[in-house]
Structures are given as structure tokens and as C-alpha cells.
């Protein structure tokens, strides 16, 4: 559909995607705001992330209207990055295993928060005493 006149589309589709991106961002923020944890948190955040990224590339960057030769040039090479991510995850898993085994670590260690350090009211006083 791309012609020499460039990418021209009705404004309506941009408005719809714009609203959708706002909604999806609000959803990902809500995941943190309502303190969803564990696998549910990972699943939701990554789902909203992929949807947002997909709509930006497809509609705002016009990839869905480009010819397949260009689309494959854009999306093809980055797929090898999935291999890199997979390898580094496997390697990271092994490295953390050996570090825990030979260097030891405190399984109960908790990261400090700003309220612990500044001693604000309502902070995590228990965590301060442990450290």
C-alpha cells in the first residue's frame, strides 16, 4: 500500500491506537500500584509490553503497511537477539548457582528502601534492625 506519495492513512486509526497505548500503559502501572507479585506480575507486564511495542511498530511506524521485503529486513535480524537472551539466561542461571554454592549468600537478605535509610515514619523498621 505504500506509494510514492508516502504513508497516508486516516487520522482515526492514530487516535484509536493512541488511546489504546494510554490504556495499556495504565494497565502496566496498575500492576505495580496494586502490588501484583510473582508469575502473574511477569506475565501481565510482559503481555502489556509486547502489545504496546507491537502497536507502536505496526501502526505508528507503519510497518503493517510496508512491503514484505522491508518488514523482513526490520524484524528478521533482531530475532537472533532472542538467542543471545536465551544463552545469557542459561549462563546467568549457572553462574548464580555456582556463586551461591561457593561464595555463599544470605537467603533472608532484604534490599533496603529509602524509608529505611532516612528513618521516615511508617518505614520498614524490622528490616533496619536485621541489618
Amino acid at each position, binding site marked *: 500500500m*505504500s506509494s510514492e506519495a508516502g*504513508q497516508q492513512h486516516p487520522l482515526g486509526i492514530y487516535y484509536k491506537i493512541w488511546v489504546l497505548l*494510554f490504556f495499556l*500503559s495504565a494497565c502496566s502501572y496498575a500492576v505495580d500500584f496494586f502490588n501484583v507479585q510473582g508469575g502473574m506480575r*511477569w506475565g501481565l507486564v510482559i503481555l502489556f509490553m509486547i502489545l*504496546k511495542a507491537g502497536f507502536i511498530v505496526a501502526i505508528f511506524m507503519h510497518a503493517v503497511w510496508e*512491503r514484505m521485503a522491508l518488514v523482513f529486513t526490520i524484524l528478521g535480524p533482531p530475532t537472533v537477539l532472542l538467542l543471545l537472551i536465551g544463552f545469557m*539466561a542459561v549462563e546467568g542461571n549457572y553462574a548464580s548457582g555456582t556463586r551461591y554454592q561457593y561464595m555463599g549468600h544470605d537467603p533472608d537478605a532484604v*534490599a533496603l528502601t529509602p524509608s529505611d535509610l532516612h528513618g521516615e515514619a511508617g518505614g520498614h523498621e524490622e528490616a533496619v534492625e536485621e541489618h
Partner: protein
Amino acid sequence: MSNVAVNQTGAQSGVNGLVDDWTSDKQTYHVPWGKAMMWIFLVSDTFIFTCFLTGYLNVRMTTTEPWPVQSEIFALSFFGSDPIPLILIAIMTFILITSSGTMAMAVNFGYRRDKIKTFWLMVATAAFGASFVGMQAFEWSKLILDEGVRPWGNPFGAAQFGSVFFMITGFHGLHVSIGVIYLLTVATKVRKGHYDKKGYEIVEIAGLYWHFVDLVWVFIFAFFYLL
């Protein structure tokens, strides 16, 4: 296949078009050269950002120290209220999406040859971008001065938190800053009528860069701030 879709230029689309484009012994990409080059640049930039994020994945997995709790570190209180988790980051995210929308409309009005609307929409996009960088500067100074976060250590937990934070958000902020300059340059030239003869593809090319910056932020927001 007898009912192959044919587009305005007379070339086939879909898989047949892909084969045609690569085997026709002439130009492969039927887009302005500047647009093809911008896409190639953005693909290479994707590799850079993915390497940063993969490095982050690896150090976060392998550190034996607890990882700092982002939603509390990036919380902010207004007028003495209880700290609201990640509120500044959420505002920055919404600003960047808003700027992406104004940019998409600038591209649209560019092709309609509406110079005034294109100019002002690009200026609005750049202004949103500049406010994003301003908030990032605020966030950095808060972390450096108030919390004592450094690239080599921080008072909360794993030392890698600081290095990853400054490297990834810094590199993204640099992209936003360059984008603001780029958009203002193109906007000024649009207003002066430099593209009346050449055509307004340049607005779309600048838009590609800007949407990419927003795209990278989507991943940083998810992996660095939320997970």
C-alpha cells in the same frame, strides 16, 4: 495463484512481492533511501539496547546481593503525602506516549502539506521530549544527591543497580535529547518550506526515530522499573 493483490505501483504484495523485490535485479526497497537508511540505523540501535538489557539480565541474575526494590526507590511524595510508587516514571511514560501521538499526527499533516500544523505538532513533540529529559534530570539528581546512588554502589543492595540504571536510562535520555534537536531542526525547515519540492518523507523519517525512542522506553519501563 491467480488472485494476487496488486498495489498502486503495479508491484505484487505479500510473499510474491517479497520474491519480486529481491529478484528483480534493481532497487529492493521501494521507499525513499532516507527511510530505508533510518530503518537500518534503528535495527542497529535495537542491537545496542538489547545488549544493554541482556547485560542487565545477566548481572541481575548472577548477583548474590538482593536487588533494590524499584517501586520504593522511584516513589515520590507530593506536598507531604505518602510516597506514591513509581509515579514520576508513570508520568514520564505518559508524556512519551503523548509525544508519539503528536508525532504521528505531524507525519499525517506533513503528507497533507499542511506546513503550519506539521510545524506546531513537531514543536509540541519536541517540547514533550524536552520535559521528559527534564524529569529524568530531576530523577537522576534525586538519586545521586539524596540517595547516594553511584555507578559502583548504592545504599540499598546490589551494586550493579547503579551501573545498569545510569547506563540504560542515560543512553535512552541521550536518544531523547538528540531526538529533540532533530525534530526542531526538521520542524524549522518544514516551516520555511524547504520540503515543498522534495516532499515530506523527512517528517516520516524523523517520526520513525521518535517512535523508536518511545519503543525503547516501553522495554525499559517494563524490565527495569516494573519487574
